[in-house]
């Protein structure tokens, strides 16, 4: 197992190297540069030229890339061209928001998706089955930003039950420790701040959960149906095990492998930032920031964030692979 983890982590190096080359070429091929974004309507050609020179953008791309690599080895991701703050600082302030939102969305998606998919499979062809299959189709089709506006129109504007924007009520003046607001609230015993942070997660969490929920329902249902038809289930039933035991120890557990894989992929995807949800809910996370950085041609932020996101994605999938051996002891990681 240890060797497996080390091998997987070593595989990261060529992956990241390849990614950085592709990204670098792609970014620098985008028309325009940060100088126009920085200066707006006010820039003169001389000012633009000087900023390009300052940023080293007038040098050959190989020289620029070499400089990037030299710094990367020292774990220095540079400074944002638009905010002039360190890329790592920007990341550490925004990633916790994305993590909290992802966890909320996945808790909703898994908590509802697996039971619903399972029940749909058990009641195949009946009303619940049709409803959940149809509902999940809607969940996949409905644009997230539309769902977000509708949720806000109903639950924030009309009923005033949930806040419509941000991660926490700024008038609370909550203390920041880790930038995981929920955790910070618990750590500092500012219970109201923790509860408020959780409250702020509900609507964006639901909006973001819509697609993963639909996917999990469908995969769970298909997988359970497949396992239900297996010989060992019939055997288990025939040898007189209670229905509960059969379900839990034989059906669900065997059906969970593909579900776990998809959960891993979905979580990894959500962690790379939910651009629309974060923007619409004015939620401070990495997705909205990366989208802004593209408009600003903020090369250091784009390079840095996408590289870190790639690492996170690989790590999440590593954890999923490790979880296989927990779900199904027959799978041994080597």
């Amino acid at each position, binding site marked *: 197992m240890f060797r497996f983890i080390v091998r997987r982590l070593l595989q990261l190096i060529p992956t990241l190297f390849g990614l950085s080359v592709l990204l670098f070429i792609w970014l620098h091929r985008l028309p*325009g540069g940060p100088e126009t974004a920085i200066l707006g309507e006010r820039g003169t*050609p001389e000012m633009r030229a000087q900023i390009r020179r*300052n940023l080293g953008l007038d040098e050959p791309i190989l020289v620029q890339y070499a400089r990037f690599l030299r710094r990367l080895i020292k774990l220095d991701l540079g400074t944002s*061209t638009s905010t002039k703050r360190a890329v790592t600082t920007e990341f550490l302030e925004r990633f*916790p928001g994305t993590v909290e939102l992802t966890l909320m969305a996945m808790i909703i998606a898994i908590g509802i998706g697996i039971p619903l998919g399972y029940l749909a499979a058990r009641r195949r062809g009946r009303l619940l089955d049709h409803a959940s299959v149809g509902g999940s189709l809607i969940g996949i089709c409905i644009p997230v930003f539309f769902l977000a506006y509708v949720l806000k129109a109903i639950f924030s*504007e009309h009923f005033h039950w949930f806040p419509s924007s941000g991660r926490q009520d700024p008038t*609370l003046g909550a*203390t920041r420790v880790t930038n995981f607001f929920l955790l910070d609230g618990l750590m500092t015993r500012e219970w109201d701040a923790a509860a408020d942070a959780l409250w702020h997660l509900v609507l964006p969490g639901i909006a973001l959960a819509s697609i993963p929920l639909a996917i999990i329902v469908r995969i769970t249902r298909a997988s359970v149906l497949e396992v239900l038809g297996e010989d060992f289930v019939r055997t288990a039933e025939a040898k007189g095990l209670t229905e509960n035991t059969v379900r839990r120890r034989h059906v669900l557990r065997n059906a969970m492998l593909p579900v776990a894989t998809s959960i891993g992929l979905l979580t990894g995807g959500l962690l790379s930032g939910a651009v629309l949800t974060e923007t619409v809910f004015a939620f*401070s996370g990495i997705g909205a920031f990366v989208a802004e950085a593209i408009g600003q041609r903020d090369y250091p932020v784009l390079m840095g964030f996408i590289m870190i996101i790639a690492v996170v994605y690989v790590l999440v999938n590593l954890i999923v692979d490790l979880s296989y051996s927990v779900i199904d002891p027959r799978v041994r990681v080597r």
Partner: protein
Amino acid sequence: MRAPRPKAAVAAVAVAALAVAGCAESDRDSGSGGSKKDTLVFGVAGDPKVLDPSFASDGESLRVARQVFETLVRPEEGGTKVTPGLAESWTPDSTGTVWTFKLRSGVKFHDGAEFNAEAVCKNFDRWFNAKGLMQSPDVTAYWQDVMGGFAKNESADLPPSLFKSCTAKDATTVDLAFTRVSSKIPAALMLPSFSIHSPKALEQYDASNVGGTAEDIKYPAYALEHPTGTGPFKFKAWDVANKTLTIERNDDYYGDKAKLKTIIFKTISDENARKQALRSGDIQGYDLVGPADVEPLKNEGFNVLTRPAFNILYLAINQKGNPKLADVKVRQAIAYALNRQALVDSKLPPGAKVAVNFMPDTVEGWNGDVTKYDYNPEKAKQLLAEAGASNLTLRFHYPTEVTRPYMPNPKDIFELLSADLQAVGIKVQAIPLKWSPDYLNATTSGSAHDVHFLGWTGDYGDGYNFIGTFFDRVKPEWGFNNPELFAQFKDADTTADAAARTEKYKALNKAIMDFMPGVPISHSPPAIVFGKDVTGIKASPLTDERYATAEFKS
């Protein structure tokens, strides 16, 4: 191996929660949170970039600076005229190059340091003696815009400095000397970038040390955490993780103290999301109201304030693009072809006006007595025929993915203008480009554009800031060289007497409308909205709203 038990998982989470609980100190002031009626949360479209306005050129940084800092002179509330700020009066000498400012006494900075003539000179000397990266155009944009260069220019691209020296004659008298007469003085000193900082704080937090390397400029601590001015509010906290910035009442302010204890600026970049946040009560006001939202919000009872228009939307014509465009008849034909009134009526916010100059009528020097090009498609066709340009094809650039105060919906504007041009027989080749940076690059530094539209929001109340910005030199945007016009600009710029200068602006506006380098289209009043129970704020054409006077109706 047995399946993990849900009960065990719940227990584990509970244990973890107990373990972290209370393991960090709360730094909350007792009584914070307090009464919500003492706090205004205001929605803004973007995070500020920096807290030291010397380094800022974005609207959100300047909005914060205007509450925390003060300048020597400031715009009248709700207008553009120069009125007293930290200086009570000011006079130029007979040459027009030395200005004497009489300062207010008894003013203190937020850190207790005293405001006096010496403090003013420390500030000007700091800007003027900028070294290294502080000379970068993205760091000191407004200084360079107004003053040009520095004591020792480190780049050949920088022009010589307009500013020469600052002398503290006594505690409340300061002389600012300039290298030549300029239309910018004193109006440009209203810009928040010329805010006066506490010399003590500047030194303590190493404010002039813009570090790092050219490719990654690092601001000093002062610019990110310790802005210290004399304004009615003090900076309290910038919470990037929650996208909020908090300022608090300065209880030692020398003038009328702020009515609310706390103002929180909360970033909500999406326009619709700002509207929803206002309706749901998350915020009690926001800026950059969509033109289509003005009426509905008014009808719902919100306080929608309309700023007097201080901007211009124009159609630029590049005389180097298509050789036919160098013919003034063709340019006039384009002007006659456009139905600007219809555009203003159908696509711009209530209160918008057709432009007859390249500056709004809120600025001195505006001239109603110029050649006007009222909609006349027949005349346009006739002029085109006379110029032998009946078969004209124009590459028409327009921006996508952007709204500006002067241009709420570029695609709609393009469609109307383009239809007008086609109606007189001009063929239009549409070239949509993403606003930043593609569009701005193509139209302001490229050479392959024939016509495009762009705009400008004024910085301070002097006409040169509009027409001079566009037409006082050869620019790739317009592609013409008109030495006579440039000389006329130079003459106006170096006229010290404000009244005489105003007359020269009027003459310039007339000359411009005869030369017809482009078509001024419209001035749009941007709107700002506050909650139903918020009063006391006066909309400013310069976006210089003062939150100190805001209060809740009880």
